[in-house]
Structure formats: C-alpha cells, structure tokens
C-alpha cells in the first residue's frame, strides 16, 4: 500500500483541497492570510523529521501551488458591496519589490541573511514601505495588499522559530521560473540567485541530499553557482548568470577592485536593479566559488553571451591591462578568452587571491559606502497576525509587563485596517416618504373635513374611517421630510377629530386604532418612520390635559398594549417613548445585516427618525445601544462587511467629544466580558482612524486577543485622554478617586431632607405608607443624580420630596389626581317593557331584529336590570346568529358605558360561548386588546377586561395606590439610569419589583468591579445565597420587592465599605439596626420604607466621610 507523504508530513491527504493543504479555515481568508498560511505550513514541514526528504520537496511545491491557486481565485472575486478582493498580484510584487508574491520573508523584505534581528527587520520593512510610498500607485488597493504582506513577513521573521526555519529552507522556498539568458533577470532570479550563492549558515551543515538537490537545482536551465564543497565542478557557462558574468567581466576588465571597477559595478547593479546587498552577495559568492573550487573560471564563463564591456572614453583603461590588450577591446565584441588570457596577469589563481582579499575589504567598505543609514521608527502598523504566536501578545497576556511597559505596548498597538473606511449610505430619501411629505400640506384641511363629518353624523360611514386611516398613514410616512410647522398643523387638526369623537368611545377606539404601530418584524424601511410617528402621537395623546378624558384613557390603553408588546417604558415623554420603539428595532436590524439586501436602507431611515426626534442624551443612548448590540454579535468585525460598515457609521454619528453618556457607555464596553477583545480592537481602530476623534490616537487601540486586566488598563488610559466634559463625580475604579465632590448647597439640602424624613411619624393608611416609601426612593434618586454631577436634575426631585414632607402622609388621599372618569350611561324609561315585548315574539327573527333596533334608538345609554339581562343574553347566546350580531353591535355601540349592562356581561360571562365574535365584542366594549379566543389565557383576560371596565364605570379605575406605584417605578428607573453601567436592558421595567431587580443587577456589577479585602456584610456569593433564601419566603409582589430591596441594601453597604473601609463599623451598625427594626414591623410597606431609609443612611455616611476627608485635606 502506498503511503501518502502528505498524510505523514502535514496530516492531510494528497488530494485535499488547497484550503485544507494550507490549513486555511475559511474561504474568506485574505491574500495575506494565504501568505502566512503558506509559510506556516512550510515551517511545519521543515520541522518534520522527514522535512529533508524528496517527498517533502513534493509537498513543498504543492503548497506553493495551492497558495497560488487560492490567490488567483481572490483576484476574480467581488464581494456583496461591489468591492474587489485582490489577491497578491505577481506583477505588482515584481513591479514594486522585484520579488515574487510568495517570496520568503527575507527576500520580500530584502534582508541579508545574517544577522536577522528585530532591528534589521524593522529597518528593512521601513525601507520597503518607503519604496512603496514613493511609487505613483502607492494609494492603490494592490499597494495596500503589498504593505500588509510586508508587515506579515516582518511579523513572521520576528518569531524566532519561523525565522530559523525560513533561514534554513529558503533555498528550497520556491521553484524558480525559467530564465532565459540574455534577458533581464526575472522576478525570482536575482534575490534567489544571490541566496543560492550563500554558503551554508554557520553551524548548519546541509545533508548530502540537500546539497545534491542544490546541485540539481543549479543545473536547471537557470544557471547557478554552486556553493560550498559541491561534489561536482561546474565549469560550464550554464552555471553563471549574465549578471555574474558581467561582474566578473568588470572585475577583470578594470583590473580588479578599484575605484573604476567599483563605480562600474554600482552602475551595473543599478541597471540590473540589484540591491547593494545583492551585489555584495554576488561578489562574495564568486569569491567563495573561486576559493572553494580552485578551478579555472574560463573566459567563456565570464564572457559568453554577454555584450562586451564598453570602455568609458572618459576614463583611462585600467592600468593593469596592457595597452595592447586594451586597444584590442572593441565595442560590441565580447571579451575573448584570448584577450583575458593574454592579459596574463589575470589567471585564476590571481583572481582567487584577489577576490579573497577584496571579500574582506568589501565587507568592511560596503556598509559604510553602499548601505544608507535609514531612520528607524517604532511606529509599526501591522495587520492582524496569526493568533497567539507573537511575543508581544504573549507578554501582554502573561501580565509580566510592568506598568511602564504600557507605553511600549501602546506604541506596539496594531490597527485593524480596511481597504476603505467602513461605513455606508442607504436610501435616506424614499420615494413614498417624499410623496407623502408633499401631500402633508393638504392634511389639515382633510382632517377638518373628517371632523365636520363626525360632528354631523352619529354613525359615520366607512368612508370616513378609510379617509382617516389614509391620512394618518400619509403623515406617518412623510413626517420626517415635512417641515415642523406642517407637522404641527397636521397634528393639531388630527386632535380635533379625536375630540369630536370623544363622546363615542367605540368611535374613538376605532380612530385611535389607526395609530397603533406595527408589531412584529418591520416589513419595509418606511414602516420605521410610520411606527415612530404613531408611537409618539399615541404617547402624546395619552398625556394631554386638554383632551377629552375618554380619548386620553383609550389612547393610554392602546399605548399600554403597545408598551407591553414592545416592552417600552410607561409614563415617559412621547419623544422618549417613540425613541424606545425605535430602539426595539435594533435587534431585528442587526440580525438581518448579513443577509438582508435592504439592510442599509433600514438603518438609514432609522438614523433619520432618531435625528428627527432630537439629538440629546437619549439620541446618544440609542446609538451606543445599537453599537453594543453589534459588538455582541458573533460576526467578525475585522472582516469587511455590512456589520462593520454599520458600526463605522454609528461611530461617526456618535459624539466622542462632548457626550458624557457616550464616554460612559464606551468605557463600559471594556468591562463587559460579553464583548470580545477582537471587536474592541476593531472599534478602537476605527476611532483611531477617525479624523473627527483626533484625541483618540493609535496608542489607545486595544490589541486583539487581550485579557480583561489589560482591557481595564487600556480603558483607564482612554478615560484619561478623553476630552474634558462634566466629569462623573464618582469613580469606583479600584479604590481610586472614591471621593464625592458635591455642590455643597445641594448636599446640605439633601441631608436636611433625609433628617426630616427620618423623623416623620408613622402612618396608618396604605396610601400614606406608599407615599412615604416613594419619598424615600426619590431621596435616593436625588443622591444618585448629585453623585453624577446632575444638580439640575436632582433639584426638582428634591423639591418633590420637600413637598411631600410638608404635610401628613395620610392626609393626601383626596389630592391624588383622579383617573380619567368615564361618565356612566343612564337608562331611559321603565325597565322590563322591552323584555316583555321581546319575549312575546318567540322565534320570529325579523321581529327580534326590529325590536333590537328599536331598543337602540329609544333607550338611553344604559338599561334597567331586566332589559340588560335579556340584551346581554341575546348578545352572548342569541339565536340565530343575526340576532346575536345585532344585539352585540347595539350593546357595544350604545351601551358600552352602561354599568348595568356591563355587570350583566360579567355575570353571564361564565356561560358565554368562547369564540372570536364574542372576543371582539368584549374587546370593543372594553377597549382592551385580547388574545385569540382559543388562547389559554383568554378567559381570564376577557373577564378581567370586563371587570376593569365595570370598575371604571363605578369611578374605581386605577387606584391611587397603583398610581403611586408607577411613580415609584419611575424613581427606581431613574436611579438605575444614573448609574454608569455596561449593563443595559432593552426592556424598561414596568413594575416596582422589576425596577428594583435592575437596580440590584447594576449594583452587583459595580460591586464585582471592586477588590475587597474584608467584605461587608458577606462576600458576593454569600450575599447571593442570602438573597435566594430570602426569596423562598416571599409571598406576593410587594414582599418580593422588599426581598430585592434588602439585597440592594446589602450591595450598597458592600460598595460603601469597599470604597471607604474606614466606614465598616458604622455601615454594619446601620445594617443591623435596620434589620432589628424591620423584624418588629407588621406591614410590608413599612419594611420597604425602612430599607430605603437605611440606604439613604449609607449615602449620608458617605457624605460625612467625604466632608471629613476634605477637612483633613484643608488642614
């Protein structure tokens, strides 16, 4: 059985795909990746114990072939964006560097073979880069490929393992192209020729086989000069190249090594584009050859096939040549053997001795005269290199570097480079948007017409609703492109329509339904604009003071359904609610980036909608959140593509100069273990190459593959360099800067509020307790804002607390703003008459329908108990269906505000059939969105909708308690928002429990970032265990809230002591005292208040500690 040498040497089959042969793991591998992969495999082959075998040579050649094959396939590939991926183009390498595209790194960099040091590598690289820069096409994509290849070659050589291997194998590095005599040496000939002329490196003795192969190589059509103690004499003209011959001819013709011969040699080297080093190597090789062979170099060896030397008429002939000999040198005739021989003096021995002498001399002179002194720069800009092999990364990750090496590390940081800067432009001017914007001017009049129609007709026609929906769609489609005054006029007229419909709840409901944004996946880019406008409009209507309460309430319910669907904040400004809606789309867009053909259009319209909502901190937040979502994907951002293009654009749009939010979020990325270092490398590289972010230099680029410790150090450095903006007053990094610097007046105010809050008398009502809890939370909210330097935001919060403290907690029940009231309906006429007549009809459907219609026209807006019972029964279970439908319609349109009718709906609900018609009826009656009638939760939700509707009709809608609870949610959310954290949630909490859970998570994240020697009151795992045990005892959402609050208190204590260890004893006293008091409390809201007070006490402690420290500092 034949053994596959590929399997033995590389572990792959001979028939493997080129990618497999080169161990390239993706077809996306770029040209430089191919180069690196080739040499990686060559080194691997070389290091194999059979690396010298014939089979190894075959494998080696296949590797080159594979590299060329993959490389050439790149040259014909275009990516999705229309960019061409160029391969390493042979003719360009020859053009710029006079080498092959797969020349070994030493040849590529034009390095002498010894010594190869990091300094010489850098020098050579710099030399090559400058050569490239000087070329007219230096700005081309191909030139960039060359640069990358050069850097990759330098990186390979800096690895000692690779360097040694390459030095050993470079003679066998590449098959040499056919070189025709008389032609200018080709791409491979000259450097490789000179390489071949080298003797074996010191200490390395080639095997006989290798020597033989060298000899075989040299007996190819391209002549070579044997090196070392070659077993065969060469003695044939085929062994010398034309250049070799000319060098010899110059030496002979000018009588050896002298000024003239030197100048001719230099000129000759320039003509053949041989570098000074190459010339040195040729001369040296000839010397070695002559010395080692001790055989005659025939004149024909020197002269064959080469043009005769043409003496410089301005220069005298070499003195060592007799005049007679010199006179016989004629132009265009080659030197003949006779001529050289007749010179007599120039026999082989003499030449050997001469060359031996000048070898030493030339070695000393060459560097001084021929090698320029090139300035070495440390600012290397290299491409990404093979993972994990480079000493720099090893040192970074081993943590052995001392802090002072940060500068060196910064200097050695590597930029992720792209052929063109990642960004994009989508279609930001969609035609339908433009058309709609043009028509917006007509909308005020159109809405006015609808308003008039509604005022006239109780039951408007379907055409009115169609017009309404059409015009809503117009403004929603074109608002971004319409001017502000037009938008304002349209919205004003739209609101008038709603007001006109306010006395008909079902009508309002239908009109408002047109404002519901799409749920689920956004099908078209323009739907982004539509959804944004609709969400904002709904939110705006829901908070209007001068709109009919029923409209406000129904808008609120619809908004609530939207909030639930998309997980938005409630009780937020309309603009913020709209922005929240936009933010929920980001995940969908990011997921579709790599395959959605209109991805850029979606993003472009998203940007424009965000801009139209205003450029404030929320705008910054949206951009940074989108950046974070991209960073969290698994897409390799170092690879050109849509993901990095969007990232680039987002970075361009973000304010890296003045926005403290952008700074906080960006720095937060470094703390997040979910974000890969590679992605941060790309992000920082993009910032470093962005002219607008001039302060972000290359030193701040985070290298790929770094660990968290290094990331935190780079983060700190970036933080230091960030331009001055209102600084965060609270720096929790590793115990540095834990001081609080306050506006003294604000802090005094805060402390005063704290003292007053503590001294309040207990309360007796649930509302009073909840209000007191809210005041305590607001006090802590104010502290969080003060800590961030946001005195202006803290002041109104403290004012609210102040107002609450003015009066007794229990005296406020009447002053709580009442919910919008639905005016309940009223019956007209005696109860039961209609029922009697209806029952007498028995089964006559037409008469039933007539009676039902009569009821609709004669009754009030409610019915008596008997009539209500019958109507409801007919609506639920009437026979036939027409009767059911008519009854249901009348019930919804006429009696939706009738308390008696609604109670009948509730009372007869257990027997009601379960179908979509009933569900729709209940939905319309109550204004609630219900799930499908076959859903498990339908029954409970439908009944709940009826119950809530009935409670509203009895003026008992949302209770004051729930309104205060909503304010508590806002306060807790504000406290969470005030914390600088990488933890971000796309879904804003809507209950106090959810809100406090988020706050706990943020404090836990903060606690984790600190190093603590003696934790209070337990270490983090211990605190977590206590939390879990506590949650086991929870009954109900309020107890759960309290359980989480206790965890929050524990974490605040932990962080306080971590930052100020001297406060340990006092913090423990606060915690223990609070627990003792809580165990004696008999109401859960009292417990909640006690915990908030304890947290405030911890903050108070911190203030006192800071003041004491300041005092000591002053003294």
């Amino acid at each position, binding site marked *: 059985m034949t053994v596959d040498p590929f399997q033995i040497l590389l572990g792959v089959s001979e028939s493997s795909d080129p990618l497999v042969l080169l161990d390239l793991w993706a077809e996306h591998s770029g040209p430089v990746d191919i180069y690196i992969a080739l040499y990686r495999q060559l080194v691997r082959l070389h290091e194999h114990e059979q690396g010298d075998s014939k089979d190894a040579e075959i494998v080696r050649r296949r590797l080159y072939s594979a590299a060329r094959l993959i490389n050439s396939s790149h040259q014909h590939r275009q990516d999705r964006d229309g960019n061409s991926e160029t391969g390493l183009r042979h003719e360009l390498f020859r053009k710029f560097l006079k080498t092959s595209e797969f020349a070994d790194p030493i040849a590529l960099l034009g390095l002498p073979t010894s010594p190869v040091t990091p300094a010489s590598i850098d020098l050579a690289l710099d030399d090559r880069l400058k050569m490239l820069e000087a070329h007219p096409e230096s700005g081309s994509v191909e030139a960039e490929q060359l640069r990358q290849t050069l850097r990759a070659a330098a990186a390979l050589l800096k690895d000692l393992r690779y360097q040694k291997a390459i030095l050993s194998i470079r003679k066998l590095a590449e098959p040499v192209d056919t070189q025709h005599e008389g032609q200018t040496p080709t791409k491979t000939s000259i450097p490789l020729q000179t390489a071949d002329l080298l003797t074996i490196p010191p200490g390395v003795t080639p095997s006989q086989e290798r020597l033989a192969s060298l000899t075989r190589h040299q007996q190819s059509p391209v002549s070579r000069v044997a090196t070392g103690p070659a077993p065969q004499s060469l003695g044939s003209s085929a062994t010398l190249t034309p250049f070799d011959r000319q060098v010899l001819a110059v030496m002979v013709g000018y009588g050896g090594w002298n000024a003239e011969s030197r100048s001719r040699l230099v000129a000759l080297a320039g003509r053949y584009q041989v570098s000074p080093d190459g010339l040195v190597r040729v001369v040296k090789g000839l010397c070695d050859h002559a010395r080692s062979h001790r055989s005659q170099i025939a004149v024909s060896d020197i002269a064959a096939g080469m043009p005769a030397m043409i003496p410089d008429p301005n220069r005298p002939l070499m003195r060592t040549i007799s005049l007679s000999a010199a006179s016989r040198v004629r132009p265009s005739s080659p030197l003949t053997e006779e001529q050289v021989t007749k010179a007599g003096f120039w026999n082989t021995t003499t030449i050997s001795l001469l060359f031996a002498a000048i070898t030493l001399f030339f070695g000393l002179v060459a560097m001084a005269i021929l090698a320029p002194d090139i300035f070495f720069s440390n600012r290397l800009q290299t491409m990404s290199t093979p993972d994990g092999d480079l000493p720099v990364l090893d040192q970074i990750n081993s943590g052995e570097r001392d802090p002072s090496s940060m500068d060196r590390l910064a200097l050695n940081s590597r930029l992720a480079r792209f052929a063109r800067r990642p960004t994009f432009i989508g279609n930001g001017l969609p035609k339908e948007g433009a058309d709609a914007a043009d028509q917006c001017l007509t909308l005020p009049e159109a809405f006015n017409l609808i308003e008039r129609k509604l005022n006239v007709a109780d039951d408007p026609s379907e055409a009115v609703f169609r017009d309404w929906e059409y015009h809503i769609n117009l403004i929603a489609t074109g608002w971004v492109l319409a001017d502000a005054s037009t938008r304002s006029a349209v919205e004003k007229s739209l609101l008038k329509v709603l007001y006109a419909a306010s006395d008909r709840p079902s009508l309002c409901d239908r009109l408002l339904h047109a404002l519901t944004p799409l749920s689920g996946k956004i099908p078209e880019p323009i739907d982004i604009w539509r959804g944004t406008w609709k969400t904002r409009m709904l939110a705006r209507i829901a908070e209007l003071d001068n709109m009919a309460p029923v409209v406000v309430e129904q808008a609120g319910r619809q908004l609530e359904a939207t909030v639930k669907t998309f997980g938005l904040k409630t009780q937020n400004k309309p603009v913020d609610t709209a922005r929240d809606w936009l933010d929920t789309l980001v995940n969908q867009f990011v997921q579709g980036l790599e395959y959605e053909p209109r991805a850029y259009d979606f993003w472009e319209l998203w940007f424009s909608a965000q801009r139209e909502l205003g450029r404030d901190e929320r705008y910054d937040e949206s951009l940074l959140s989108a950046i974070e979502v991209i960073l969290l994907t698994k897409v390799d951002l170092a690879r050109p593509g849509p993901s990095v293009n969007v990232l680039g654009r987002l970075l361009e749009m973000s304010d890296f100069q003045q926005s403290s939010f952008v700074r906080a979020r960006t720095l937060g990325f470094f703390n997040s273990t979910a974000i890969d270092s590679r992605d941060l490398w790309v992000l920082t590289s993009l910032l470093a190459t962005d002219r607008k972010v001039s302060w972000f230099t290359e030193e701040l680029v985070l290298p790929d593959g770094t660990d968290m410790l290094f990331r935190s150090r780079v983060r700190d450095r970036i933080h230091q360099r960030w331009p001055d903006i209102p600084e965060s007053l609270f720096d929790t990094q590793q115990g540095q800067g834990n001081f609080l610097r306050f506006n003294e007046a604000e802090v005094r105010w805060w402390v005063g509020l704290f003292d007053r809050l503590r001294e309040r008398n207990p309360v007796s009502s649930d509302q009073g307790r909840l209000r007191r809890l809210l005041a305590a939370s607001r006090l802590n909210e104010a502290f969080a804002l003060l800590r961030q330097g946001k005195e202006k935001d803290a002041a109104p919060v403290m004012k609210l607390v102040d107002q609450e403290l003015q009066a007794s907690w229990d005296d406020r029940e009447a002053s709580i703003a009442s919910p919008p009231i639905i005016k309940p309906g009223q019956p007209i006429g005696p109860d039961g008459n209609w029922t009697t007549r209806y029952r007498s009809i028995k089964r006559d459907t037409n008469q039933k329908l007539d009676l039902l219609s009569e009821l609709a026209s004669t009754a009030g807006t409610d019915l008596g108990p008997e009539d209500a019972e019958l109507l409801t029964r007919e609506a639920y279970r009437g026979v036939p269906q027409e009767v059911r439908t008519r009854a249901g319609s009348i019930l919804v349109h006429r009696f939706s505000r009738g308390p008696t009718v609604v109670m009948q709906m509730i009372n007869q609900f257990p027997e009601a059939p379960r179908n979509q018609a009933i569900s729709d009826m209940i939905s319309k009656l109550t204004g609630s969105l219900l799930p499908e009638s076959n859903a498990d939760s339908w029954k409970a939700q439908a009944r709940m909708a009826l119950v809530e509707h009935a409670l509203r009709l009895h003026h008992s809608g949302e209770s004051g*308690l729930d309104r205060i*609870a909503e304010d508590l949610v806002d306060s807790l959310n504000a406290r969470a928002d005030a914390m600088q954290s990488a933890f971000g949630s796309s879904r804003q909490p809507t209950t106090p429990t959810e809100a406090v859970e988020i706050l706990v998570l943020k404090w836990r994240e903060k606690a984790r970032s600190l190093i603590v020697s003696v934790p209070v009151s337990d270490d983090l795992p211990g605190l977590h265990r206590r939390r879990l*045990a*506590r*949650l086991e*005892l929870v009954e109900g*959402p309020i*107890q759960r809230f309290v359980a989480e609050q206790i965890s929050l208190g524990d974490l605040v204590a932990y962080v306080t002591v971590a930052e100020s260890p001297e406060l340990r004893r006092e913090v423990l006293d606060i915690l223990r005292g609070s627990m003792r008091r809580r165990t004696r409390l008999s109401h859960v809201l009292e417990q909640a208040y006690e915990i908030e007070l304890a947290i405030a006490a911890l903050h108070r402690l911190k203030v006192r500690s800071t003041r004491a420290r300041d005092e000591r500092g002053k003294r």
Partner: protein
Amino acid sequence: MNRHASVLAVGLALICGESISLSARETQSNQFVPETDRWTARLESLHPDNPMGYFELGEEVADLAQNEREHELARRLFSLAGLLDTPRLGRSACLALANIETEIHIKRRLLAMASLLSGTGGGSGAGSGLLSREDEGGFSESTALSVTAAFSYYRRGLGSRALSQLRKPGAEEMLMSLGHLLRGGSARFLEDCKLYNGRVKPTLTDFHLVKMLTIERAILSGPDRSWASELLLSQGRPLIEIESDRLDQVLGVDPSRCIYRGGRWIQP
C-alpha cells in the same frame, strides 16, 4: 339478732365498697401522671456534650406526642439539638421542626433557615412544596375563574351554581382566604348561596359590588397583580426575615438552659 347481722353486713359492704372505691381512685390517680413525667428519666439523662441525644429524644416525643405540651417538648428538644451543634444538627433540627409545625408562616421560616444552613442558599426546596410561585400569594388562574364565576352566580341569585363552582379544586380554600374582604365573611357568603337559590337575588350596594369587583380583579391578576390588589389580598403582611447566624432567634430557645432537673430546664 337477724336485724343486727343485716345491718352489720350492709355496713361491711359499704366499708368494703368504699375501700374498693378508694383503692380504685388511688390506682387511677397513680395512672394519671404529668405529661412529661414519662420522659423525665430520659430528659434528665441529656447532656450538652451529646446534642444528638436531644435530637433523638425529640423524634421519639414527636412521634408519640398526645397533647400540646408534648409537642412543645419535642420542639424544645429539636431546638436545643440544633443550637448545641448547629453545623451538624442545625439544618436537621429546622426541618424536623417544620415538619411538626402547623403555623404556615413559622413553617416557611424554618424551611428558609434550613436552606440557609445548608450553604446552598435558596432553591433547595427542603421538601417544602409550599415554596412555589403559586403559593407566593398567587392563585391559579382556573381557581380564580371558579371563584369569580361563583361571584357571578351569587349576584344573579343562582346560589347552587355558585356552590357548584366553589366545589372545584382550590376554590373554597381561596374563598376562605378572602373571607376578610367579603361582607360577613366567607361563611356568610356560603350561607347566602344556599338561600339565594333562583328566586331572589341578593341586594348589593354599590360599595359591596365594587368590593367584589376589586377582589375579582385582584385574584384574576395572578402573582403579578398590582400593588393595590396585593395589599387588598394580603393586608400588607410583612416579609419574614431570618439570619443564618441567629438560629436562636428563629428557634426561640435559650441554649444555655439545656439541663432538665426537677421538671425545669436549667443551666449546667
């Protein structure tokens, strides 16, 4: 002569009967011993050097306890065992106490302490079965629908149908837990259901009607009900808190008094 013999015989009989009676009472009084007396010897042999002895005796007492005093004795024995050797017996003591505890809040507290002492934090379950999300104050949706349906039938005067709904699993228990919110309590409600049986409907004021609707809203909301609904149902019941290093507080026993002498627990 015969008369005298008769009188003497009767007198003797009386005396004998009295004697018998007396001796019988004596026997009975000897049998009627104080509840702990049968454990006295064992109790007096207990020593804090052998905490397991307390635990084992506690198990025996708990198995054979016939009255509240013996139950209390068992509790004390378990508590002392747990306090004298918390690392080894603390958790077991809490579990044993939870097992014999009838008050659900105390039971929860003991189970939570057991989980803290286990070092695994929460989630051990400790076989409680009580520490489920539903029992976190949330009623199952189907039970809530049954109770609200009962309310509907009640309002319509269809008492028997209301009672039929309340016979569904968990419904009557739920109604009992809501008793403090219903007019006259849950017992009155059940009685009314028997009375209002198709011919007469109950007359409800707006206040009571709204109250019933508020209860319906609360129980239909499930565990994530609003705070207003939660306060209505729970009446602000506080969260039970425990500290793992304060087992003595949870158990409520002074571990220093661990020697039983003369019918009392004293210090060694």
